[in-house]
């Protein structure tokens, strides 16, 4: 207790941060309780009655016919995103590492980071413009002898645009971690490989690949948790009247139910479900990695 008094300056320094974390992180965590309640704004989180039956808000979600469609949409987008955005930065880093000429390599690298700093509103605005009949994507289609079409109408090109732009934005930036792993490789290994007459492919397979493997598995574990956390703001902006039912994913569903319609407890229940599944995914992937490759798991 005396020590507390002695360190009062330090405690004073920490207080603003502690208070902000309490208000903006802990109070919303407490607010999750409304997922199990029949929430009335006037009575507050604690004063509202418990839902009857207790899991009513969750049951309501699983009984809804649309819910399965929403779940399926989410999985489809999440898996497609992971499958494409995960390996691309890795391949890009390996190829960049093989590239000769420091200046050229730096230039490509610098240019590849630029899309990462573009906001989601800008990306979707660009997709919207490029996909229209006289937009850039249709210039490319015409170049290949295909007809000009409106790619924003309906959901046929949604996944292509969504995943394609995610790869475009993420490939350069995502390669940074792999490149730093590659730069730690002892050049002696390459000298030995040259003496043994290894070709380029053999060098990539036996030197570069083992060097980035630990980074790869850590990132895979972390990414697995986000399968249900689709880039929600992007989808929200990509939705229009012609594709809304096909594009609805869990997070946009939470937004519409919670913020737009005011079904606060229902939206919170769905959100809680998503968080729990995300946690289980990370845990499961970590277990799998531990089985396959015991050194590279997260915990």
């Amino acid at each position, binding site marked *: 207790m005396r020590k507390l008094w002695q360190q009062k*300056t*330090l*405690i004073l*320094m*920490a207080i603003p*941060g*502690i208070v902000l*974390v309490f*208000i*903006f*992180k*802990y109070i*919303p*965590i*407490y*607010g*999750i309780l*409304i997922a199990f309640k029949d929430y009335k*704004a006037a009575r507050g989180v604690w004063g509202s009655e418990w839902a009857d039956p207790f899991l009513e808000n969750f049951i309501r979600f699983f009984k809804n016919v649309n819910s399965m469609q929403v779940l399926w949409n989410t999985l489809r987008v999440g898996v497609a995103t992971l499958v494409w955005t995960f390996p691309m930065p890795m391949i*890009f880093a390996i*190829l960049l590492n*093989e590239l000769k000429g420091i200046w*050229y390599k730096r*230039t*490509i690298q*610098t*240019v*590849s*980071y630029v899309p990462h*700093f*573009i*906001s*989601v*509103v*800008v990306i*979707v*605005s*660009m997709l*919207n*413009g490029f996909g229209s*009949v*006289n*937009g*850039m994507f249709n*210039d490319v289609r*015409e170049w290949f002898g295909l007809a000009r079409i409106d790619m924003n109408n309906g959901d046929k090109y949604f996944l292509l645009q969504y995943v394609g732009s995610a790869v*475009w934005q993420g490939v350069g*930036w995502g390669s*940074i971690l792999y490149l*730093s792993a590659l730069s730690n490789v002892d050049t002696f290994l390459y000298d030995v490989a040259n*003496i043994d*007459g290894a*070709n*380029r492919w053999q060098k990539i397979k036996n030197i570069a690949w083992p060097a980035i493997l630990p980074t790869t598995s850590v990132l895979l574990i972390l990414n697995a948790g986000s399968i249900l956390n689709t880039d929600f703001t992007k989808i929200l*902006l990509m939705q229009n009247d012609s594709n809304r039912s096909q594009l609805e994913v869990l997070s946009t569903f*939470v*937004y519409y139910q919670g*913020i737009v319609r005011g079904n606060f407890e229902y939206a*919170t229940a769905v*959100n809680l479900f998503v968080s729990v599944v995300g946690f289980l995914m990370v845990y499961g992937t970590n277990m799998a990695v531990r089985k396959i490759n015991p050194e590279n798991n997260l915990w």
Partner: protein
Amino acid sequence: MASQKMKNQIYVGSRLFDAALIVFMAVLGLIFVYPFLNVIAVSLSSNQMISTGQVTWFPKEFNTLGYGLLFAEANIWGAYYNTIVIAIGATAFSLTLTSLLAYVLMLRDFVLRKPLTIYLLITMFFSGGTVPTYLLIMDLGLINSWWSLILPNAVSAYSVFVYRAFYRGISYEIREAARIDGAGEFRILLSVYVPLSKALYATFGLFSLVGVWNSFYDALLYIRDQGRQPIQMVLRKIVFTSGTSTMTEITDMLNNGLLNAKNVQYACILATIGPILLVYPFLQKYFAQGMQLGAVKG
């Protein structure tokens, strides 16, 4: 040991691979850059050329009407002002409060070090999510206030831990020396730790500024007053909610075929990313550094 003939084969194969790689990377480089060039070119072309899909690399039938009308009718300057004030406010709050907390948590003999670390750690694994946060902001009466964009994200466990790891890299003896000279804790942080952490502040400051510049979701939720909205919300309005229909002059010119909707939309895209693209070449060193700072120390 490989034979001489085999070595020659490998050499030729390797050179071919290099050549193919150079071409491939050049194509990739174009894919990263071309969309931006196309946006610039289209924004500056005539309706006739745009609607027939003839604009690719360079403007055709040069036309700056889109920019003129955008800046005259869409309150871009106001949105810039709002965004800059929010970005500077959020960054100042975040750097100051995170530094204070991280410094205290770094000290080995601080009594509350363990409990406070756990207190922060918990927030990395659990979060309230959209709706409870929204309800909180409403209860606090922060709707339409810029504080709703500044305060909730000012302190995060992740950045406190990265700051703390960075401070730990600074020798403890310097701190002891400053103490013996009679400096208080606040003084030590300000005149020893902060000057020695320039790389940390450069990257975190930059990321915070860019992050705020690019964010729109919090503003979509909390800021309803049109005049107080940041730049991303203006772009959203122009492109997605046919916000130009209230701008009479633009609507007239669209109807008369003097202007293409893309003139205004692409001009607005450029107005939104312009400031970032302008500073990027000078600061790209710090951007790349930031990714590694977080990855290694976090």
